[in-house]
C-alpha cells in the first residue's frame, strides 16, 4: 500500500472523529506551543543583549572594585581613570561611572519621579550610543566645573513637563538640588520591556552631592581588539599598586558579559524547555491512549483487511501513520500558535523577533517522532491481532 494512500486514510480516520482527535491533539498543541514560545523568547533576548553589547563596542571592558580574600576592598576614583587613560597607551579612554545605590527623586512643580542616577563623563556616549530628541549630552567643560546639568529620558521629560513640552533649559530638582536639563534621550530598546529611566549628570557634580569620593565602575576602551587582554591585565596591576590592595579589582570584557548572560539564559531556557517537554510527553501518552481505543474499535476492520491480503506491516504502518499524522497536525498547530504568541510577546517587550527554521523543523520532527514512538505499541498490537478472533469481534 502506497504511503500517499496511507496518509489519506490516516487523515480520513482523524477527520471522522473530529472532537476526539482535537482533544487528543491538545496535549501536543500545548507542548509544542510552549517549546516554541520559550525558544523564540530565549533567542530574542539573546539577540537583543548581543545587539546592546555590540553597540558598546567589542573593544570595551568594565573595571570594578571588589573585596579580596583578606577582606580588603579595592577603590576606584576619578584620578584612577585619568591615570589609566594617560599611562596605558593602548587605552583610548576611560569613562567613570558613579551611581547612587538608591532611586533618586527627580521633580518639578508638576510631578515627581524616581530614576536611576548615573554620574559619568561625556565619553559615555561613545560606549552607550544614545540618540537625542532634544538638546545634547553634557560637555567636558560642564563636567570639569561640576555644573548641575542633567540628561533625562523622553518618558521622564513627558512626565515632568507634560507630553511634547520643550524640556531643554528648564529646571528639575534632583534630590532637592536644582539641575538644568541639557538633553532628552530617545527611548532606548527596553531590556525585557522594563523602561529604563536613567538620568545622567556629570560625574564631578555627582560626587560633589555626597561625601563619597569613590566611583563604582569604569568603562575603558582600547584602540584595537588585540590589545584588550593586555590592557585588562595592565589596568588591574596599576590599580592594585595605586591602592595597595592585591585582588581588589576585577575586569570584565563585553564578550565575557555576553557569554555569561548566554549561559544563564541557556540554563533558564533548558529548564522551561524540559517542562514543555514533559507536556509533550503527556501529549504523547494521550495519543497512545486514543490509538489503543482506536485499535480496539477497529478490531473487525483489521481482521477484514488481513483476510483481504493486508500484511502485518501494512496494518502496523496504517496505525503508525495515523498516530504520527495526529501528532504532526497537533505539532504544526502548536508551532503556529507558538510562533504567533512568541512574536507577539517579543513585539510587546520590544525585542527583536527571531523565528528560526531549525526550531520549526525540530518541533515538526519531534512531534512526528512522538507520534511514531507512542503509536508503536498500539500499532504493534493491531498488527499482532489474530485475524480469526478479529473477524469474530463484536
Amino acid at each position: 500500500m502506497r504511503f500517499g494512500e496511507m496518509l489519506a486514510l490516516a487523515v480520513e480516520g482523524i477527520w471522522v472523529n473530529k472532537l476526539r482527535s482535537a482533544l487528543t491533539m491538545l496535549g501536543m498543541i500545548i507542548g509544542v506551543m510552549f517549546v516554541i514560545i520559550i525558544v523564540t523568547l530565549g533567542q530574542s533576548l539573546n539577540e537583543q543583549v548581543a545587539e546592546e553589547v555590540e553597540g558598546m563596542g567589542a573593544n570595551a571592558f568594565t573595571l570594578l572594585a571588589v573585596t579580596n580574600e583578606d577582606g580588603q576592598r579595592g577603590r576606584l576614583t576619578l584620578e584612577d581613570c585619568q591615570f589609566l587613560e594617560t599611562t596605558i597607551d593602548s587605552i583610548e579612554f576611560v569613562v567613570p561611572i558613579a551611581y547612587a545605590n538608591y532611586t533618586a527623586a527627580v521633580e518639578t512643580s508638576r510631578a515627581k519621579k524616581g530614576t536611576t542616577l548615573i554620574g559619568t563623563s561625556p565619553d559615555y556616549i561613545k560606549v552607550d550610543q544614545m540618540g537625542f530628541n532634544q538638546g545634547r549630552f553634557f560637555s567636558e567643560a560642564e563636567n570639569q566645573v561640576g555644573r548641575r546639568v542633567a540628561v533625562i529620558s523622553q518618558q521622564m521629560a513627558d512626565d515632568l513637563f507634560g507630553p511634547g513640552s520643550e524640556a531643554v533649559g528648564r529646571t528639575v530638582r534632583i534630590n532637592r538640588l536644582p539641575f538644568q536639563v541639557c538633553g532628552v534621550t530617545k527611548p532606548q530598546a527596553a531590556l525585557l520591556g522594563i523602561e529604563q529611566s536613567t538620568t545622567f549628570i556629570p560625574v564631578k557634580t555627582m560626587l560633589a552631592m555626597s561625601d563619597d569620593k569613590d566611583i563604582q565602575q569604569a568603562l575603558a576602551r582600547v584602540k584595537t581588539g588585540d590589545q584588550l587582554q593586555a590592557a585588562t591585565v595592565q589596568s588591574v596591576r596599576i590599580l592594585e599598586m595605586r591602592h595597595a590592595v592585591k585582588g581588589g579589582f576585577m575586569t570584565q570584557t563585553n564578550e565575557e558579559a555576553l557569554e555569561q548572560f548566554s549561559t544563564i539564559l541557556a540554563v533558564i531556557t533548558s529548564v522551561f524547555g524540559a517542562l514543555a517537554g514533559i507536556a509533550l510527553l503527556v501529549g504523547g501518552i494521550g495519543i497512545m491512549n486514543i490509538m489503543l481505543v482506536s485499535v480496539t474499535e477497529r478490531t473487525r476492520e483489521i481482521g477484514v483487511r488481513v483476510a483481504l491480503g493486508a500484511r502485518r506491516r501494512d496494518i502496523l504502518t496504517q496505525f503508525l501513520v495515523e498516530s504520527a499524522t495526529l501528532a504532526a497536525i497537533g505539532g504544526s498547530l502548536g508551532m503556529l500558535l507558538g510562533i504567533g504568541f512568541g512574536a507577539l510577546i517579543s513585539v510587546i517587550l520590544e525585542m527583536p523577533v527571531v523565528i528560526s527554521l531549525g526550531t520549526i523543523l525540530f518541533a515538526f520532527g519531534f512531534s512526528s517522532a512522538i507520534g511514531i514512538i507512542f503509536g508503536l505499541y498500539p500499532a504493534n498490537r493491531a498488527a499482532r491481532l489474530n485475524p480469526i478472533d478479529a473477524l469474530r469481534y463484536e
Partner: protein
Amino acid sequence: MITIDSLSKTYNTGILMVEALKDVTMSVEDGDFLAVMGPSGSGKSTLMNILGLLDQPTGGSYRLDGVDTGSLDEDQQAALRNGKIGFVFQNFNLLPRLNTQRNVELPLVYAGVSRGERQTRAAAVLQSVGLLSHARHLPNELSGGQKQRVAIARAMINRPSLLLADEPTGNLDSASSYEIMALFQDLHRQGSTIILVTHEPEIAQLARQIIYFRDGRLVSSEKVEHPLDARDLLEEWRQEQGELI
C-alpha cells in the same frame, strides 16, 4: 487445486485441548462447487479458516495449487489471500466507513494497483453484481442482500481462483439467499472454484457436491445428482408469495 492430507487442528484453550479437525483428507478440483455441512462445532469454520490461510493446521498438510502452504511465511500467505482467495462472510464484514466502491477496491489496494485501475475494475465487478448504481452508498444504506453482493464483488475483484463463503446466506431472507446463490452459480459456471459452508440443506442442494463434517471429521461426501437452479427457486418462491397474498 486443493489437496489436504491428514489435516488436524488442536486448540489449547488453557483448560482443555479441543480437537477441531481430526485427520481430514480431501481434495478439491478446479471448478468444483462444494457445500460443507455439519452441526455447530463440527469443524467447518476451522476448515474454512485453514483453507483461507487465516489459521495454521497443527498436523498434516494443505497444498494449494501444488504449493505446500506450511512452507510459506506470513507475507507470502498474505499475498495468496490477496490474489488467490476471495472471502465472503456471514456478517458481510464491509468496512462501515468506506462506500461500496472503496470496499470493493480494498484487495486491489493491498495488491498495489493504481487508483485509476482500481476504479475501473471496481465499476466492472459492481456492474456484474448489479450494484453499480450504489457505488457511492455506505454499507448502512444497503439491504442485507445488497451488502452480501458488495462483499461478493469485493471477493471477486482480484479474480481469485478460490472463493470461500462461510454461511453467506445465514443472515439473509429467502429471496436474498436465492439471489446470492444465483450469483455463486454464475461464478461457478464462469469457472470459479467455490467452497461454501451452510446449515441449510436447500442451499447445499444448489452446489455440485456436499461434504458432511461431524466432531472434526469428514464423515461423508456426496455428489448432487440434479443441482437446482437458484433462479428457479427464486421464481417459485415469488409465486408462492403471490398466492399467499
